[in-house]
């Protein structure tokens, strides 16, 4: 595993005609061989960050090191594969689309084998002779991913990769990306507004807000639905959660620092009280500990080391988990 694929120091980028930088990063290091996810709403700087990482634009100020090197050349760019939110497919067959980059780079020795494998991995073997533009959104996204992965990039940049695809394509794309990272030791960098996707892909998570990057995205994402007739009750299939405010959405998120751990049931106004078994304790940002508790759903709590010592529990032991209904954020 490469320690650091990208290193950004004091990087900012301002678009022409704007007086506010679209991106303003103090220090950011992206590790190789894992998935890194940047979440943030529209206009938070995700696309600008991706263009910088794709070496498409140069930072206005600061340093961007790629595999520890600078300046950037075509040789560097050829190590990067990009999957756009709305990829452009040539108006030719699926197979010809996947072959395009290999032919362009004159990598034709084992082309048939590589293309066959890429098509098979993405579940596209039976579509290979069909016109790419006639496929559904999810299938087109898979063709674009096959076309990118067949070039064996070191880095894979994905911009909202599953925003407009059906559930089966989404699952396959997520699985393929995770497998690719595990098998090839590749580095996948994903930008998305979908915190649930960030959770499913795992790896390092960052949040982008008004062009600024902050460490650790949302720690807990629960998928499910609101229960009809029970105002504000969200059912994950395993646990029921009381949520204040908006009552429409497919997911709710909860930040780890909002979760309270205790060895006994808390007598308070907190509406969510659960009990579970501690399954993991790891070191988080700023010297805090991240404690994972299995309450039917895995819930991550952030706690200081002294707080952890005061609790006096360890992995495998039972613990009470509490959080306010107002601490949950509903995702559409």
């Amino acid at each position, binding site marked *: 595993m490469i320690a650091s694929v990208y290193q950004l120091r004091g990087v900012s980028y301002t678009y022409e005609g704007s007086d506010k930088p679209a991106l303003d990063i103090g220090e950011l290091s992206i590790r190789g061989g894992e998935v890194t996810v940047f979440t943030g709403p529209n206009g938070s700087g995700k696309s600008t960050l991706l263009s910088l990482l*794709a070496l498409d634009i140069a930072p206005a100020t600061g340093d961007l090191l790629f595999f520890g090197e600078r300046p950037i050349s075509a040789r560097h*760019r*050829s190590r*990067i*594969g*990009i999957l*756009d939110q*709305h*990829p*452009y497919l*040539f*108006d*030719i067959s699926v197979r010809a689309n996947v072959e*395009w*980059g290999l*032919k*362009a*780079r004159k990598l034709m020795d084992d082309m048939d084998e590589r293309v066959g494998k890429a098509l098979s991995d993405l579940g596209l073997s039976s579509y290979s002779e069909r016109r790419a533009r006639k496929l559904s959104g999810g299938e087109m996204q898979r063709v674009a991913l096959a*076309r990118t992965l067949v*070039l064996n990039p070191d880095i894979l940049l994905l911009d909202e990769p599953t925003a407009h695809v059906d559930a089966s394509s989404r699952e396959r794309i997520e699985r393929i990306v995770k497998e690719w990272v595990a098998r090839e030791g590749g580095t996948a960098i994903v930008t998305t507004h979908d915190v649930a996707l960030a959770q499913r892909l795992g790896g390092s998570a960052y949040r982008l807000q008004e062009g600024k990057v902050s460490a650790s995205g949302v720690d807990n994402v629960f998928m499910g639905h609101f229960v009809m007739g029970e105002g504000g009750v969200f059912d994950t299939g395993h646990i029921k959660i009381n949520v204040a405010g908006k009552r429409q959405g497919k997911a709710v998120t909860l930040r780890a620092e909002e979760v309270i751990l205790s060895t006994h049931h808390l007598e308070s106004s907190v509406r969510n009280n659960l009990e579970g078994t501690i399954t993991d304790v790891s070191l988080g940002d700023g010297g805090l500990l991240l404690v994972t508790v299995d309450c039917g759903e895995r819930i991550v709590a952030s706690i200081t080391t002294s707080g952890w010592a005061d609790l006096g529990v360890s992995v495998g032991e039972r613990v009470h988990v509490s959080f306010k209904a107002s601490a949950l954020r509903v995702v559409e």
Partner: protein
Amino acid sequence: MDYLSASAAVAADLILDFDPEVYGIVLTSLKVSVSATVAASLIGVPLALSIALNNFWGKAFIRLLLNTLMALPTVVVGLFVYALIGRAGVLGELGLLFTPAGIILGETLLALPIITNLTLVAVETLDPRFFKTCRLLGGSTARTARAALFEARLGILAALVAGFGRVVAEVGVAMILGGNIKGFTRTMTTAIALETSKGEFALGLALGALLLLVALGVNGALFAIRRRA
């Protein structure tokens, strides 16, 4: 009015009886127009692709020039080429004046700015993601050009049809450089001009109808291709 309807009846007979003179003129017209369109395409399409895919100083001026040349009067082209291939011209020794090859040369120059400019527009208005994708996949300029040729094929086909339409319907170049020699350089448009000046409407009407039929056929084919795509 009677005279006109009588002429129309004679024109219909000439068409339906496959009059050798009428169809000989049509054939000459088609031969020179198709040759000129092919020649202009072989030069204009690669030229447009190289302009579209490269950034260089003076690109905006070339666009302006091509737009201006699209409105070039046919007689001006005829005059210019006449000066080149006439007896005293630089290319006078080739003996191209008053030959089909002379008309083809003039009409090629006439179609060239149209085909180049419309192809340029077709390529430049391709989805911007096309160019980005080619670059990311490592496509060279030549490979990107080949892909652009296919992706913009309908626009390019329309450019070729516009070029053909311009040359098949023009009269200035064919008249000045061809000389309207019967059975040799007489085209549909020069024959119509001649017959009209003689007050012989029948042959002119027959040729006019066939000219429209040719235009209809070419545009119909383009329409069908667009629908299939």
